[in-house]
């Protein structure tokens, strides 16, 4: 049975999608059976993997019960994992499901029949707090929080921890925090101070493989490839491969 993990930070621009794609691809390269779900209406992960390819059915259709989950799973040979694409229609789903019974656990129920086929299911969340983010958290055993080490990222962590507490109190489900991934790392004193604060103030595990600020990551997106394929010797590719191993333990 797959372990379901959400990659989440309610702050934007912290490399959630980049982290999801490259960790998922690194796991796949290590022989793991991986499903990546794009749950962001901006569909950045979908576009990074499949470019401008259009999909008739996406995760939106599954959520609103217009498609079976098996019908929306796409295989990416380049990245080595299965993926469920997203589309902009997801942005209106909160209104559509406002009066739906059990609306916060739709994704969890939809994933149940396919979870046994994968070793891990990774969910790339949108940088907002809406019904889809709640669905991702209710479906997940744990979350991973990517942060750029800066002041606003600390505020982002506070928001997430608050959201997890609200889910526990209001919906009766406890989601674990697996750890914090440092992205776009630069060797500056302020950066080290922020990392120190994450450890001390929030008592969260910080993964030891920091992802350096590296142009190879952006180039890889442009070529629709994982960074370990596009630039295998780049510092970012090596960091993501090591991070993937660290995350799996």
């Amino acid at each position: 049975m797959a372990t379901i993990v959400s990659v989440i930070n309610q702050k934007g621009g912290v490399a959630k999608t980049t982290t999801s794609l490259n960790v998922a691809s690194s796991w796949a390269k290590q022989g793991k059976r991986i499903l990546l779900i794009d749950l962001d209406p901006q569909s950045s992960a979908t576009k990074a993997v499949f470019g401008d390819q259009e999909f008739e059915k996406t995760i939106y259709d599954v959520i609103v019960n217009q498609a079976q989950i098996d019908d929306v799973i796409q295989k990416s040979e380049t990245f080595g994992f299965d993926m469920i694409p997203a589309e902009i229609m997801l942005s209106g789903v909160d209104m559509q499901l406002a009066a739906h019974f059990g609306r916060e656990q739709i994704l969890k129920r939809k994933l149940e029949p396919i979870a046994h086929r994968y070793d891990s299911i990774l969910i790339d969340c949108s940088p907002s707090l809406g019904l889809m983010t709640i669905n991702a958290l209710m479906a997940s055993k744990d979350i991973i929080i990517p942060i750029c080490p800066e002041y606003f990222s600390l505020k982002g962590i506070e928001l997430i921890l608050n959201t997890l507490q609200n889910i526990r109190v209001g919906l009766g489900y406890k989601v674990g925090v697996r750890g914090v991934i440092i992205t776009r790392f630069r060797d500056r004193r302020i950066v080290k101070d922020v990392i120190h604060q994450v450890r001390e103030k929030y008592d969260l595990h910080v993964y030891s493989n920091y992802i350096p600020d590296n142009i190879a990551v952006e180039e890889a997106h442009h070529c629709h490839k994982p960074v370990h394929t596009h630039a295998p010797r780049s510092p970012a590719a090596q960091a993501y491969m090591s991070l993937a191993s660290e995350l799996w333990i």
Partner: protein
Amino acid sequence: MTKSNPLFVDSTKVRGDVIGTQIELRDAMIYDDEQLFVLVTNNQGMTTRTQMKVLDYRSYEARVHLSHQTHVTFQFVVEKDSKILWLSAQHTGRAQYAIVEEWEPLTDETAIAAAQSLINKPLNSLDHKSEDPNAWARESSMNVRALMDKWGL
């Protein structure tokens, strides 16, 4: 009452459905010969007194059944030999799946005396097996008997 975000309200429950609520008290320290209780007053004004068990280092827990989303008040009490040693302020909130509070004792003698009067009420046992399993059936049959008598059946 605190603000309520509808995103964090269980859509599978209507207001008033009975749910199990986990009450946790953090940063509390009691000695071996002392007991920690939580006094919960539900929306109908009924107060139950439940002993809290150790959850973690300096953390205690109790599970009570409450009506979903209704207004409740609760208070933590440290007792020794049925005498109140310490008492927290009275907290208010909605009945949800978890209530987590930090231990902050009061030293108000009047409040302690008021809470002391509740001590003689029977404990709301954590062990459901100790409840009389036939009580509900007995009560129901009495109701049926009363109706049959009333209607001359």
